[in-house]
């Protein structure tokens, strides 16, 4: 961070004259913004005015501060990124009421997070630049080019929406309010998500089609029951700093490669695939992972491709464990050398493929599915024949151990070692022993 340089300025405007129509509220709001910046003696180097689209979106061009001119309705997202990267910057968003419709979710979420930016909504109830179409804030019954018979939609209560969702500072008023400069100062210095809903006149369109006036602004507020003044004021931690504090997990270090020791050896003449077909909850995928680590411990290359329904904790769970003597370039084969069918869910997913296997493949399964139709050789193992009942969650690893023992594809000792590691080491090791035993029966 550079040392703070404070440049005192008598005005934050540059030489360009405003481009707005005579009587447009934008001019007076921007004059108040300029006054506020002067009053705050904001460092122009540390102040970013973020705009998006429409007449109000031109605003940043008339200021000597930093500026970001982005896409329709997205100004709050850019402001959030700027603030997150440099929490010490003063970030002021200028958006029209159009932006509160297309970018409503960004407003709500920035308020909810309490990201410390100030949002000035130039609210004139229609889209000026594109020709006077209605917006999310157009009052009911108002005439615009897209509501020629009168607007049937209820206007969005911007202040209420961001206020109940956690904005730190919320004010509503008009471009005619003498305290606008002071309110902008309060918002900018509030160190929270601050929003000013500033009602104003679009002389080119809304005033014309609705015989609208300064007085009508005020009576509309009254009719709608929309309160004015400071509506919400809440002290919550500012997000860009709070996130930095909360996101760090004590004791963790950046993750690098996790090397696996090679203590055994195995050789393969061609790639060998063991596919496990079971159910969610059978820890099929973690069994395959232990198998992959055991293969690496044996000097092989392994890959693991899983298939399970999006709901994760129900239905089938398949894991393909491909083993090879050299780096694996293609892990997509559908022809396992050993297909382990554990449950009806698993069988349902692999039945047709099993039928197509030839005699150089082996199906390893439980007595329940012993009559499966397949060209492969079917071998049956029966967990019920073991002295202890095997928990469902250990079935996958047990079957994998049986498959490794059967195929001799790598030493069972490597599997023993891989299983013994990690949080479930003890029960995993027991499942492996049971599987090895079962395969020997």
């Amino acid at each position, binding site marked *: 961070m550079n040392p703070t340089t404070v440049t005192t300025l008598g005005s934050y405007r540059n030489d360009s004259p405003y481009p707005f129509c005579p009587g447009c509220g934008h001019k007076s709001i921007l004059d108040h913004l300029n006054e506020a910046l002067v009053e705050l003696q904001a460092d122009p180097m540390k102040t970013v005015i973020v705009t998006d689209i429409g007449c109000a979106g031109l605003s940043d061009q008339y200021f*000597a501060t930093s500026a970001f*001119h*982005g896409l329709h309705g997205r100004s709050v*997202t850019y402001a959030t*990124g700027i603030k997150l990267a440099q929490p010490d910057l003063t970030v002021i968003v200028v958006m029209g009421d159009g932006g509160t419709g297309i970018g409503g979710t*960004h407003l709500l979420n920035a308020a909810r997070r309490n990201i410390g930016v100030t949002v000035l909504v130039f609210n004139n109830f229609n889209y000026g630049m594109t020709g006077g179409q209605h917006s999310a804030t157009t009052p009911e019954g108002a005439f615009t080019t897209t509501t020629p018979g009168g607007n049937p939609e209820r206007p969005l209560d911007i202040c209420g929406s961001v206020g109940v969702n956690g904005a730190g500072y919320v004010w509503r008023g008009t471009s005619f309010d003498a305290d606008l400069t002071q309110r902008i100062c309060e918002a900018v210095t509030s160190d929270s998500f601050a929003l000013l809903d500033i009602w104003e006149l679009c002389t080119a369109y809304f005033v014309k089609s609705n015989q609208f006036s300064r007085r009508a602004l005020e009576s509309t507020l009254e009719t709608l029951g929309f309160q004015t003044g400071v509506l919400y004021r809440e002290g919550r931690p500012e997000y860009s700093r709070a996130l930095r504090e909360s996101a760090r997990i004590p004791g963790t270090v950046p993750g690098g490669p996790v090397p696996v020791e090679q203590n055994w050896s195995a050789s393969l003449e061609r790639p060998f695939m063991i596919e496990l077909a079971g159910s969610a909850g059978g820890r099929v995928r973690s069994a395959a992972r232990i198998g992959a680590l055991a293969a*690496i411990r044996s000097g092989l290359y392994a890959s693991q491709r899983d298939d399970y329904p999006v709901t994760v904790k129900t239905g089938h769970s398949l894991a393909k464990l491909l083993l090879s003597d050299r780096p694996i370039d293609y892990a997509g084969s559908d022809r396992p050398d050993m297909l382990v069918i554990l449950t009806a869910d698993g069988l349902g997913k692999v039945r047709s493929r099993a039928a197509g296997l030839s005699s150089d493949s082996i199906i390893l399964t439980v007595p329940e599915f012993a009559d499966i139709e397949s060209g492969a050789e079917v071998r049956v193992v029966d967990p019920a024949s073991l002295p202890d009942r095997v928990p469902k969650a250990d079935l996958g690893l047990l079957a994998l151990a049986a498959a490794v023992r059967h195929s001799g594809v790598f030493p069972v000792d490597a599997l023993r070692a891989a299983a013994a590691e990690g949080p479930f080491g003890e029960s995993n090791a027991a499942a492996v022993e049971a599987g090895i035993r079962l395969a020997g029966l």
Partner: protein
Amino acid sequence: MRELTDGSTAIVRGAVDAGCDFFAGYPITPASQILTGMSREMPLVGGVAIQGEDEISSIGMCIGATMAGARAMTATSGPGISLYSENIGMAIIGEVPLVIIDVQRLGPSTGGATTAAQGDVQFVRWGTGGGYPIIALAPSSVPECYTLTMKAFDLAERFRCPVFVLTDKELNLTATTVDIDAYEKVPVRPRSRMAPGESAGAPYSYQPPDAVGPIATYGDDTPVRFTGSTHDERAFITKDPQTVGALNEHLVAKIENHQDEIDMVVADIDPGADTALLSYGITAGSMREAVRVARAGGRPVSALTIQSLWPVPEPAILGLLESHERVIVGELNHGQYRREIERLAARKTDVVGVHRTDGTLITPQDFLEALS
């Protein structure tokens, strides 16, 4: 030493080693592991990771953060790139260095969330209004996920533009064994920033058209303007035809005049071969396997893996087309990149496609059948 890992993990590591310090993303299969990985890693290296309220906000935050000095990355899949579209254009015109990971899944629409595809190849190239160039890299293995992510950060800085890393569900979610030595670190150039006192009043320069000027960052010692509209060198909106023309010429020339700095292919040429295989991404793995099998069977064959999909590495492809009678292009779509090869072949070389859009991978056997 070896490890068991996947493409998502390698991309996260590549980003960290490239100096990435800002990540924003929205959950989507099969890219979510990058979001969760970056959420874990960023705070550990002094950076920030945030889950945006949607894809639009995620890329928007990345662009804002970059202008405030961060080195940013985001990750999504095809449906998310659809939502990124408008902001991709803004990153192009505003000349924002940004890395976008697209973990492809089967489309269109929601398509198949956990289904393999390479369907976004033309989409990332033309995925925003105006038709201006982007850079896209495509890793074909887990170690390349690491290396090409680093390379993407480097190219983003070099050309001040969004750079895509186009990967896919298979590469990102399949755990595989990697020799730890295979992770090749590439140098990532530091951001070219305007020196203190240098006029940041002109954060964009178009002369000569292919020159890329240094970036001025918010919070530096001078006010900085950024705009997503057609602008002059000081970032003020303009319609002056000469200025507008110069800007748009610059956006093209800065990339197209420097293709030699971007082009990346892996050529495995057999001088005795009449046929060459060409592929990229996950399908290049199947291609390599097919080449091994063909050669073991005594069939000479060449292979070209395209690592830099966009801009099209034309010299290498033209060389391949000239020295072979037939080029077989394999990809998990209806021939999106084959179009580029056919364009270069100009009907002089036979171009054959091997394509799948059924959610399964192109097999080595598919390549071998096309070969025979």
